């Protein structure tokens, strides 16, 4: 079972093997808890949210298309659950319209010192995450902690790949600014 891909295990669950869902949960529980804790700052019940994510994933397992990535599908459910949580509990309504997603963007090419800068940002993230807007916080969490690619983040958030780049660039700049102040 351990050498099977997520998608193959999800297919088994779809065929009625409920125990296989436990394997998927074992694989994703630490990741989703980390995602919840970093994204839902000050959420005491982050674990409850993760449990809701797994319950929703199981309930909707037949809507998963096994030809696509299971991780993107699960993170998408988590994203929706967490966004609802933020909207309900923290009274921060999420805007349905985001001008960043309308027009094409050019994002800066990686430079030689990009790696160093990213390391610097990674080290200062924990101190700054709570001070960032949710839309910038989430993209940083998915990129730096969950190590998703731009395309995967685009699939989770359902935004253009170029917008992921723009949000990350802005989020990194905000982190640098915040870190410099402290």
């Amino acid at each position: 079972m351990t050498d099977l891909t997520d998608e193959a295990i999800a297919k088994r669950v779809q065929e009625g093997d409920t125990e296989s869902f436990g394997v998927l949960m074992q694989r994703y529980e630490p990741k989703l808890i980390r995602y919840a804790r970093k994204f839902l700052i000050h959420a005491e019940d982050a674990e409850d949210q993760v449990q809701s994510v797994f319950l929703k994933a199981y309930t909707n397992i037949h809507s998963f298309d096994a030809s696509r990535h299971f991780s993107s599908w699960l993170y998408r459910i988590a994203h929706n659950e967490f966004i609802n949580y933020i909207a309900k509990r923290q009274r921060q309504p999420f805007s349905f319209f985001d001008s960043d997603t309308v027009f094409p963007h050019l994002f800066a090419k990686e430079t030689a010192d990009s790696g160093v800068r990213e390391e610097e940002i990674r080290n200062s993230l924990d101190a700054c995450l709570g001070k960032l807007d949710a839309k910038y916080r989430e993209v940083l969490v998915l990129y730096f902690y969950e190590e998703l690619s731009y395309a995967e983040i685009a699939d989770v958030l359902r935004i253009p790949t170029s917008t992921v780049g723009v949000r990350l660039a802005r989020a990194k700049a905000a982190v640098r600014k915040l870190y410099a102040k402290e």
Partner: protein
Amino acid sequence: MSEEEKKSISQNVLEQINSGQIKPTSRAYFVFRVGVFTVAMVVLVLLVIYTSSLVFFGLRSSGAWFAPGFGLSATRSALLIVPWVLVGCVVAAVVVLELLVKRFGFAYRRPAIYSVAGIALLVVVVGYAVALTPLHRSLYRQVHNGAKPPFWGGLYKNFDAGPGHALHAGFVNDLAKESFLLNAREGADFLVYITPTTQLPRERAVREGDFVLVFGSVDRGSIRAAGVRFAPDEMHGFGKRHPRHRMQP
């Protein structure tokens, strides 16, 4: 929360699954939902194309389509003829289609401007092509010949309002050097003055019996024409008067 408690998330979920408290929603439900979504998309696309073609048909049959370039008053009249409610419906439907299409990766992975432009282009190009087919003309005739029109036949009655203050379609009569009598299709006759600034058709000189579009405001029964052009065939047979029969000797 302790390590032990953290592990209990998967145990809790598995317990709920095994006890039957939660069950997966059936595959049939998702198939049905996809089916409903697909049918809704197709119906919406067909409706928006029909509506956009009706807008084009209305503009062309009223002559408003040909007004730009024939002076400010003609353009202003054309703008008054534009069925703005239908245009608003088309725009709203494009927005709804964009929201529906955003569910698909090919749409959300690119900036919204591309999918909006794609949908708008489809609606305009296909709508214009449909407007050139006999579809609307035959529905219009059904409505005006007293045959029982489809329930949305009322839409075609709006074209009876006439071509507006500065757009007049009709047949040329009593042609003189600097004027002619226009038997306008809305039922009135206008004396049309041709001045040195009047834009005349380039194809050939205007002759008696020609079906033309005259651009210019009516002043006490006469029109100082800003422009005259031959009306396209599709404009025949619209309005209260049917000049083809009237012109027969």
